[in-house]
């Protein structure tokens, strides 16, 4: 059972459950004040505006009691995927390094983005080849990845960058960077490859009826567990 944690203000939780079910997973929404089901085999932190983005996107949710249970599950090897607001929660709670903060444009951006697969040797990217270009929607006001030099080098040297924003041909350029993220980073791994966060929305590009299924491979990362 993949638990999709629903905070007050989450709004991609239903989409996530539907996409995961379409991939053949059992998934259900779990209200953040309830405890994780005993048969939890994966955890998704969905997109939205938990706690109205008070203080900073994800800041409040990151300190909510259910995150203690999420930490315990991570210790036990349970995979965790944070998407958009869930990625902000991941960084705010220290599950992943760095921070997702105000877009360089200072605007909320809802558009399609191209991503280059940087490391295909992870559960979340094994459906792709390194260098593949996929297209996923983004919808965020605070998606600019920030991290200090040391942290960035650590991510690079450990091959923990999953995706970078790029153009249609896979060129990682400033023009193709929608939000000013350092190194065009769109998604990263935690200390362990079982934890991943990304700002773009794979669950919004997973159902064949919607035309774009590029995100299915990311969600399929729960399979390896």
């Amino acid at each position, binding site marked *: 059972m993949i638990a999709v944690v629903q905070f007050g203000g989450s709004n991609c939780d239903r989409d996530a459950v539907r996409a995961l079910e379409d991939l053949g997973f059992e998934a259900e929404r779990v209200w953040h004040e309830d405890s994780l089901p005993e048969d939890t085999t994966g955890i998704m932190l969905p997109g939205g505006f938990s706690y109205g983005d008070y203080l900073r996107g994800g800041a409040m949710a990151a300190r909510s009691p259910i995150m203690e249970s999420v930490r315990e599950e991570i210790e036990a090897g349970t995979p965790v995927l944070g998407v958009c607001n869930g990625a902000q929660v991941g960084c705010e709670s220290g599950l992943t390094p760095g*921070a997702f*903060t*105000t877009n360089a444009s*200072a605007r909320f951006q809802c558009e399609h983005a191209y991503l280059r697969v940087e490391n295909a040797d992870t559960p979340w990217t094994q459906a792709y080849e390194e260098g593949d270009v996929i297209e996923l929607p983004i919808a965020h006001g605070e998606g600019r990845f*920030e991290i200090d030099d040391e942290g960035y080098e650590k991510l690079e040297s450990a091959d923990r960058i999953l995706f970078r924003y790029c153009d249609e041909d896979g060129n990682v350029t400033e023009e193709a960077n929608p939000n000013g993220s350092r190194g065009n980073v769109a998604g990263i791994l935690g200390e362990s490859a079982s934890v991943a966060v990304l700002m773009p929305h794979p669950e919004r590009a997973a159902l064949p009826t919607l035309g774009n299924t590029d995100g299915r491979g990311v969600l399929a990362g729960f399979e390896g567990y």
Partner: protein
Amino acid sequence: MTTYTATVTVRLKQGVLDPEAETTKRALERLGFELDALRFTERYEVDLDAADADEAADRADDMAERLLANPTIHDYEVEVAEA
């Protein structure tokens, strides 16, 4: 116990881009103001009872560390005064 007000000021670390401040600066310039730079800070005023000013400062420091600031992008400072 004495009641103190701990003022926690949170600001972006030097070198971290501040798009909202940049946008505000441009808006001021459009209004005809001349300025070199503009920075945002967030200021929290926390009223609390503590045995002494040091204890009040320690507790406010902990609050900044654990929630009010994000150490990846923020610096912060704490000042304490009797309320």
